[in-house]
């Protein structure tokens, strides 16, 4: 069995290597290799279901790094779930990508990166120790950097990739600090070893370690205040957004917290902190989602918001609920992104919802898929999000956080509003694609002119025979994955029917341990009542959206409304609550002025001056000692010998004195 585990881990990497080696020859074949290896890994993971859910999970020691430091792979329910999502949803997205990237020049490079990402992500979740986790953590960041900047001839893509990478490195530093502290405190690098030594961690230290871990989570999972990279990351191809920036990588923070559940259980202050940050992120993302026009940005903010829910869940101690939201979110968010990809593809790279409209007649399949995803994400009763989001929100009450509960419920309403706003704007009303920009109030994008120097297309890709642009992928290639994901977006939540006695709860067994409530339970009303309340809020959100964008009257007046809204959008939305500007003012500019100070003053006067003085001193000494330099090797040797003799005499006399 353990060989299978190794195969799961290495198959995507083998695919990446094969594509990398044969890329130019393969072209679209690269897509098939990539999808096949990942789907095969999915099947092999599924085969190991029994071993993983058995006590202790499937384990394979790989290599003894230094004696006492054995690195290995671990497949327990948690990593099984993540591996299945990574390879399963990932495989579907890869199949979809064959169609999406059909006429891209660099299709082979794309699939090499994607497979590399899957490998990196598997490294992260399958590792049984901190070192592997850290390596995986870094590698997914790298893969994400490659893929965001995939179209590196667009300055905005390059800048977005750089931004994502830099912010992720901030998180990596946090994780690294936590890793060192954990090793220092427990003397072990494997999870099992650390958890068995948990008592060695005192309250303050534990809080610091959890905090450092959470810095990493916040950067990778786009939590406030490190969330600014995620909307910009939508510069990458849409399948990338679906796989990395919605379904898998950004949920690594959720995985990390769930993985370190025993530590988290022991530190209520850390849980409270994480819960608050998750709630703030959820609310903020939802509010920002209201005012976006770019379809992928709307989805990006919704991702941020939904991850806020997950973090809130696992942070407060409701691991099953938080992870369940990850599970359902993977399906509906990937489905939403892929559907958005269908629209973008159909409209020739148009991403602005203002220039869409009325597409339900033109693309009924996309409409139904989008509808399924939307209903799932807002938590419409009967759809998957309903089960997971309600569980998360209700868990706030159980853990004695009524304020967080209120935020969660409010966010659910806002989510319903902005998701339906997007749905109405894209699929209803008149088609606005032929209208002038000014008519819709679209201002020239300031980012498009930020950098005049376009980096050239890589010569190797120019000389490569271009794939014929006019060929079209077979429709099923893109529709089939969307259909499967839409299906799961509807039904994925059913595993959790029955609450704590459902298959979902039993699947994890005692993996997470018991999380004592942060504060006394303040359950004000029963779970069904809470569900009713949230559903009512969601309904209000839908109704408001319908009134503003969906009713026949609103549809008729949509162009005027959009124009007014575009021009009247408050600056606070345009700047996404000024987080970028705040980071700029608080971090970037001070750092730059310190650098300038060092370059202008410290470097020439202190460092160079010091070196000059030392050089002068050495010259002065040289004048004195030059007399000793006779140029005769043997006289030098004799000098050394006299010195040695003195040493020997000293030690011989000391030794005899004892």
């Amino acid at each position, binding site marked *: 069995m353990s060989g299978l585990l190794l195969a799961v881990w290495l198959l995507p990497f083998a695919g990446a290597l094969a594509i990398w080696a044969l890329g130019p020859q393969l072209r679209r074949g690269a897509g098939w290799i990539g999808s096949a290896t990942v789907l095969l890994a999915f099947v092999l993971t599924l085969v190991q279901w029994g071993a993983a859910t058995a006590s202790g999970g499937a384990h*394979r*020691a*790989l*290599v*003894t790094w230094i004696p006492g430091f054995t690195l*290995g792979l671990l497949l327990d329910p948690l990593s099984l779930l993540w591996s299945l999502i990574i390879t399963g949803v990932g495989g579907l997205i890869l199949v979809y990508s064959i169609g999406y990237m059909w006429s891209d020049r660099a299709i082979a490079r794309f699939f090499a990166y994607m497979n590399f990402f899957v490998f990196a992500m598997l490294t992260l979740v399958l590792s049984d120790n901190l070192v592997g986790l850290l390596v995986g953590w870094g590698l997914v960041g790298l893969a994400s950097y490659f893929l965001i900047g995939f179209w590196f001839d667009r300055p905005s893509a390059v800048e977005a990739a750089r931004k994502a990478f830099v912010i992720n490195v901030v998180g990596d530093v946090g994780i690294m600090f936590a890793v060192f502290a954990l090793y220092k405190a427990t003397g072990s690098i494997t999870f099992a070893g650390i958890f068995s030594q948990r008592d060695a961690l005192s309250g303050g230290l534990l809080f610091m370690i959890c905090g450092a871990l959470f810095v990493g989570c916040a950067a990778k999972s786009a939590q406030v205040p490190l969330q600014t990279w995620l909307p910009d990351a939508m510069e990458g191809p849409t399948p990338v957004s679906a796989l990395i920036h919605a379904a898998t990588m950004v949920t690594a923070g959720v995985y990390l917290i769930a993985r370190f559940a025993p530590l988290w259980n022991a530190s209520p202050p850390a849980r409270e902190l994480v819960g608050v940050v998750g709630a703030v992120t959820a609310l903020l993302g939802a509010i920002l989602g209201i005012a976006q026009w770019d379809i992928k940005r709307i989805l990006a903010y919704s991702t941020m918001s939904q991850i806020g829910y997950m973090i809130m869940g696992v942070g407060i101690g409701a691991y099953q609920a938080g992870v369940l939201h990850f599970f359902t979110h993977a399906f509906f968010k990937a489905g939403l992104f892929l559907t958005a990809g269908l629209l973008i593809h159909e409209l020739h790279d148009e991403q602005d919802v203002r220039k869409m409209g009325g597409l339900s007649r033109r693309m009924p399949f996309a409409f139904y898929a989008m509808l399924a995803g939307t209903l799932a994400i807002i938590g419409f009763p009967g759809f998957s999000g309903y089960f997971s989001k309600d569980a998360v929100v209700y868990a706030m009450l159980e853990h004695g956080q009524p304020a967080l509960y209120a935020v969660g419920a409010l966010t659910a309403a806002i989510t319903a509003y902005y998701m339906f706003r997007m749905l109405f704007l894209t699929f209803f009303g008149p088609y606005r694609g032929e209208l002038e920009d000014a008519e819709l109030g679209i201002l020239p994008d300031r980012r498009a002119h930020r950098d005049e120097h376009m980096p050239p297309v890589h010569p190797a890709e120019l000389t490569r025979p271009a794939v014929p642009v006019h060929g079209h992928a077979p429709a099923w290639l893109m529709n089939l994955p969307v259909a499967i994901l839409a299906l799961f977006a509807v039904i994925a939540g059913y595993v959790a029917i029955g609450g704590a006695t459902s298959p979902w709860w039993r699947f994890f067994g005692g993996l997470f341990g018991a999380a004592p409530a942060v504060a006394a339970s303040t359950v004000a009303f029963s779970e069904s009542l809470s569900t009713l309340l949230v559903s009512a809020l969601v309904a209000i959100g839908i109704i408001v959206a319908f009134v503003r964008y969906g009713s026949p009257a609103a549809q008729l007046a949509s162009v005027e409304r959009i124009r007014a809204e575009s021009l009247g959008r408050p600056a606070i939305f345009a700047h996404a609550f000024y987080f970028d500007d705040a980071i700029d003012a608080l971090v970037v500019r001070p750092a730059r002025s310190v650098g300038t100070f060092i370059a202008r003053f410290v470097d020439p006067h202190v460092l160079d001056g010091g070196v000059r003085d030392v050089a002068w001193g050495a010259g002065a000494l040289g004048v004195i000692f030059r007399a000793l330099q006779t140029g005769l090797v043997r006289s030098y040797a004799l000098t050394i010998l006299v010195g040695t003799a003195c040493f020997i005499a000293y030690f011989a006399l000391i030794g005899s004195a004892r």
Partner: protein
Amino acid sequence: MIPWWAIALIKAAVILFVVVTTFAYSMLFERKIMAWMQLRPGPNRVGPWGMMQPAADAAKMMFKEDLTPETADPLIYRLAPFISLVCAMGTFAIIPFSESSAGIWGMGNVNAGILVIFALTSIGVYGISLAGWSSGSKFPLLGSVRSTAQMISYELALTMSVIGVLILAGTTSLVGIVHAQRGLWYIAPQLVGFIIFIIASVAETNRAPFDLVEAESELVGGFHTEYSGLRFGLFFIAEYLNMITVACIATLLFLGGWNPLFGLSIVPGIVWFIVKAGLFIFMYIWLRTTLPRLRYDRLMNFGWKFLLPVATLNLMVTAAVVAVTAG
């Protein structure tokens, strides 16, 4: 009770006798095979099928005048052949010829056996280079400089190719390595290593096509140009003994030593050993009759820029595979 040193002395004498006889007949073997490959009869005058030819050669060598050039450094000139011969013979002390190697078929089962063989081989270079230097003439000097560079260069590749086997076997004892090959001979997993070993060992023993050290068309006779008579004979013996040593090492490391083929354990192990080593020696002769000599710079380029990297790669792959499968 016979004292241990007497047993060792008797065993050494027997082994040396056998080895020197083997040398004599492997020379005949070579001449005959070369002749057949070139469609000539070969030596056939002395004794039936020329079987007494080695004795005749030996007699000739012994009675030939032993010359020492005036420009030569007399002491080192006389010392050099003995260094060569002693090192060549010394290796046989630790080559196990069969299972009961510490008993009747060899001198001792040394823990670091393969390393000791390499040590002795590396001392053997002195014979050639000192001979070339002390002759006081140009061709031998060139030959000796060539041999030094060539043997040090190819010793790296040779050692690298052998380390793959050592990693698989997990021991440096020759007996241990043969025991580790009971199931699978290392020629299969270490095919690349074996090929590198063949090439490097041909260069290491100064045999064609790598016999630049004594290339008669360029350097007359290389390092032994000035030697004659018995001293020349000593070099000659040393060269053949080195060839036999390499054949034995190849047999031990790659061809399973005395492990029987097809499970024919009814045939004694030493017979298998001799058959395998004989095949290896035959291959040597075959190479000599088939391939032309390389140019010297090409030889060095090949050794450093191709053979050594490939051997290193082989070593890394082997180590990686062992590390992964061991876990």
